[in-house]
């Protein structure tokens, strides 16, 4: 086989493999859109479920998911960024920081149901927050932190070292250097990490199962100590727990959840490309 032929064969094989991976994903998305689109309407998004959830819309669950996403951001964002700054800029490389890093990598791989159980034990029971938006946000926040910390730390370390050296040589303190020369340039990467983390939080069922999600609660929450419905759990409930549930509503709910998660990914990609384009070096 000539080198030319080998090259052509490689291109064909790799294209086929890529197609095998991508086509099912596209099919899943198309299928959900095809089955769910007829259900989508303004009423579907703005009305509460009725008649044992077999009629009406998904508004309480949609709102609950939005609230939980905000809550997750509030919990996860400051802690993750602070941790990433500490690890990347201050901690150095010693036994303690190697342990911290290893813990973070391992936490990222823990099944989400374990976070759910931790949230139940820690926030719902021990701290006495009950099944509430607060407990759910804290649980989701902790679940997203490892990923956000890792992406943020990578983004911080990707800022060229010489910018730090130059900044320090011009009389900046370490914090001023981080504030003015590191964080602004690490921001696109940090934001991407946060948005992807939130996308994951919005779609997870297991962590909210015991900590916040209500089976059926048409009233809206009044405070962070209230329960709420949430889309992923609602989808689980109407798919498995309610006999005679119209398929249309199930797929409509799935489609809304899918759109929310996809829009997070889309926004993350847009932010990254936009800010990369503005980068000068």
């Amino acid at each position: 086989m000539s080198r030319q032929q080998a090259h052509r064969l490689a291109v064909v094989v790799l294209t086929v493999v890529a197609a095998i991976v991508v086509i099912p994903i596209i099919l899943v998305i198309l299928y959900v859109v095809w089955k769910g689109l007829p259900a989508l309407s303004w009423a579907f998004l703005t009305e509460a479920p009725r008649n044992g959830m077999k009629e009406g819309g998904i508004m309480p669950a949609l709102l609950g998911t939005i609230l939980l996403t905000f809550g997750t951001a509030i919990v996860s964002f400051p802690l993750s960024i602070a941790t990433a700054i500490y690890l990347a800029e201050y901690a150095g490389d010693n036994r303690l920081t190697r342990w911290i890093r290893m813990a973070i990598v391992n936490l990222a791989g823990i099944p989400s149901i374990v976070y759910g159980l931790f949230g139940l034990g820690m926030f719902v029971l021990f701290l006495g927050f009950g099944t509430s938006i607060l407990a759910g946000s804290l649980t989701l926040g902790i679940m997203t932190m490892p990923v956000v910390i890792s992406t943020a730390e990578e983004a911080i370390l990707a800022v060229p070292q010489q910018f730090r050296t130059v900044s320090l040589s011009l009389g900046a303190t370490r914090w001023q250097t981080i504030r003015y020369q590191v964080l602004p340039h690490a921001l696109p990467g940090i934001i991407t990490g946060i948005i992807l983390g939130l996308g994951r939080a919005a779609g997870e069922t297991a962590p909210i199962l015991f900590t916040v999600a209500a089976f059926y609660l048409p009233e809206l929450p009044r405070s962070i100590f209230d329960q709420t419905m949430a889309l992923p759990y609602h989808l689980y409930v109407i798919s498995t727990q309610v006999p005679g549930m119209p398929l249309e509503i199930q797929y409509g709910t799935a489609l809304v959840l899918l759109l929310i998660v996809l829009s997070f990914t889309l926004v993350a990609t847009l932010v990254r490309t936009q800010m990369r384009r503005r980068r000068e070096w």
Partner: protein
Amino acid sequence: MAMSDPVISVRNLYFTYADETEALHNINLDVLPNQVFVLFGPSRAGKSTLLRLFNRLSDLTDGTQRQGTVAIDGRDVFEAGVDVSALRRRVSMVFAIPTPLPGSIYDNLVYGPRLAGVRDKVELERRVERSLRQAALWDEVKDRLDASAFALSGGQKQRLCIARSLALEPEVILLDNPTSGLDPISTATVEESLFELKDRYTIVMVPHSVQQAARVADQAAFLLDGELVEVGDAERMFVHPQDKRTEDYITGRFG
């Protein structure tokens, strides 16, 4: 303070990196004001290491060990309670590779002064123009101070970096092989600006070559493997070196 008092005074200085390599061994030298002091020698002689000790950029490297003193205007920079930020504004460094910070030409020049607490816009603009003129860059960039610093040519970038140091209104300027990446014409421009600058500043420079050392130096120090072989008047040293090793290096027998 009398004119002849040294600005920088190094006594019994030893410096070792984390991997136990001794970079500097018992260095003693004085840098006089308003002169160009050149540290020359082959690679790994300890020139850059010594330069970075003058404003404690050496702090950025972990695991190093140091003995001896580096005094600026009579005060040891490693003394407890020294304001390192203020020290680095007084003793300012220009690096081998021109490194603008992301942002405009103007942003680069006002970065240091702003951190030093200069808020007044008129004062900032005065410093921008003055430092650009001193670095012989004003005429080329005066109409585009808002342009990205990365849009400048290599030689312009390095003069911007020199101007950025000057905008701090330092006493001493440290130049670590500032013409390493520059073409001969840009090199000549940078060298010419040094002659203007030494009226106002004390300059310590690691040169690109022996030839450059001979062109710009008032005082010179020859370093070899972390030891100071010879120090003194540049004109004398480059014509009648006292040490055989200096002579061998200058005449190109090694290095």
